[in-house]
């Protein structure tokens, strides 16, 4: 977890996208809640774009 957090910080620094920091925190929080609420997710996308 720590290594991923530090990767995210290094990425924001490299891309000069510090403005993404609060958004990442908020979206990850919402996403985390979705994980807790749903258990596992299997995406029924016609085309997964990620």
């Amino acid at each position: 977890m720590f290594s991923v957090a530090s990767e995210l910080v290094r990425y924001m620094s490299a891309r000069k996208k510090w403005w993404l920091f609060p958004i990442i925190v908020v979206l990850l929080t919402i996403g985390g809640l979705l994980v807790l609420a749903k258990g596992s997710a299997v995406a029924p996308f016609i085309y997964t774009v990620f």
Partner: protein
Amino acid sequence: MRILGISAFYHDSAAALIIDGRPVAAAQEERFTRIKHDPRFPENAIAYCLQEAGVTLDDIDHIAFFEKPLLKFERLLETYLATAPHGFNSFRMAMPLWIKDKLFQKPGLVRDLKRFSPSGKGIEEKLLFAEHHESHAASAYYASPFDEAVVLTMDGVGEWATSSVAIGRGNALETVKEIHWPHSLGLLYSAFTYYTGFRVNSGEYKVMGLAPYGTPRFASIIRDNLIDIRPDGSFWLDQRYFDYATGLTMTTEAFHRLFGGKPRDPDQPLTQRDMDLAASVQAVTEDVMLKITRDLHRTHGIDNLCLAGGVALNCVANGKVLRDGAFKNVYVQPAAGDAGGALGAAFAAHARHTSTPRAEVLPNELDLMSGAYLGPAFGQDEIEGRLIKSGARFTVHGDDDLYARTIDCLDRGDAVGWFQGRMEFGPRALGNRSILGDPRKPDMQKTLNLKIKFRESFRPFAPSVLAEDVADYFEIDVASPYMLMVADVKRNRRRHLSTEEKLLFGINQLNVPRSDIPAVTHVDHSARVQTVHAETNARYHALISRFKERTGCGVLVNTSFNVRGEPIVGSPEDAFRCFMGTGMETLAIGNCLLSKANQNPDLVSDYSAQFAPD
């Protein structure tokens, strides 16, 4: 210097190993797991690559992953932010996947790779990441025979880029231009793949094959509404018509209203309208590619073009770019899709992180790809052992006898499985994992499609032609070793059609023989040509040469050794299973020859329903 390239976690996982800038092994994971487009960590493909070179991961200098996950994550977040609240459905599906799994790709890769390293150390330090389109560009440029080239990559989407232009000079490859998400030529094509009832990411070939049956009557609607194409070929897609950026599907209600109906249900029969839609999106795609390539040549004044990315598998468009003549030489990476990203990432790491120059293409080589024969091979003893274990009944023949007997079978109209040497890397079977037929037989296309491949009857088959004879059969005089160029059958080989035959429309055109090699002549007289070179595939070249000596025809029908929805066979056992589950009459594996009539009837299986339609 040994570099392992990996592509994974999206579709078509693969691994590739280059030594001193030269590919020595490459394979897609699906060939081992038997799951089409398998996206999982390519453990079997990596194990094979290391085994082929006789090394462990400890002997590898760098490990290169084909894309940058955090940039992809950035694109996702910015897309959701820009389109909120519309993308919530997609967000709700995507975020759990990222939070539980994809954000941890780097530690996950390190963990998965440890099993290949006896010491278990130093993996994180060796791990490098290339951008998705950089990997595509490197896969084409560094494998090509060019010292200087414009490199055009186009696909659905990577991190942000959906298309890129790079200039390769010597050891350097520099990106000069990109088109960014959500404006994507690949996704425009995929939207029509979905709308015409085919599966996105695999049905694009079918749309391309269907296009010649239709007329491009919707092309102007596409140009007027969906896509704004600029004179330099750059484009902008009107997102009101597309759902892929924020939804769970490809097209919106506005798209359906524009084209007058819902997407075709895959179970519904194809109509002339579907064929016209296919022809229309194909025409627009070709238009964009021609505009881009003409502008690139004008701008950069370089005569060599390299192509990669999923759109570069559109061999009809590639053929038009070649014939257009803006570029004198056009090279397409045989594994142009995401599997080839493994090779490209390794090439990119070699260029950026080593002081060794790129490997040179030798005088007897077309490129560095060794004919794309970079996968596993099986020795004669191993083949016999595996066949005996599978319960196969076979005879063993010397090379000359094997060729003669195989030609007997082809000449009488058999579909012949031909399993020889190293497996191909990339989506095409190029004569080592192929089903072969006699192209002179008018009913061969229908037989192969319906009895052997269990797939739609409209789909065309490709010709394998001796490289030295290509200009005798097709309107092309350059090498096309990877079946990635479409050319017309020579005029003098075409059959004169009666008035009634000329008036046939749509799918009814299928049963009309159009040349003296009807099984590989599409309804518009085009063919997806594979030139066969003695330097890269001596056995296949010898077989076609003998077929020509016997029949006067230097062409064979070549289709991949699999059925609809199945990955191409990888091992002798896969080949035997496919042989016993289909209407194939003869199978040649190494020097073993199998006849269906001699096999144990208890081993015959119903193969058609084992794989989900693609």
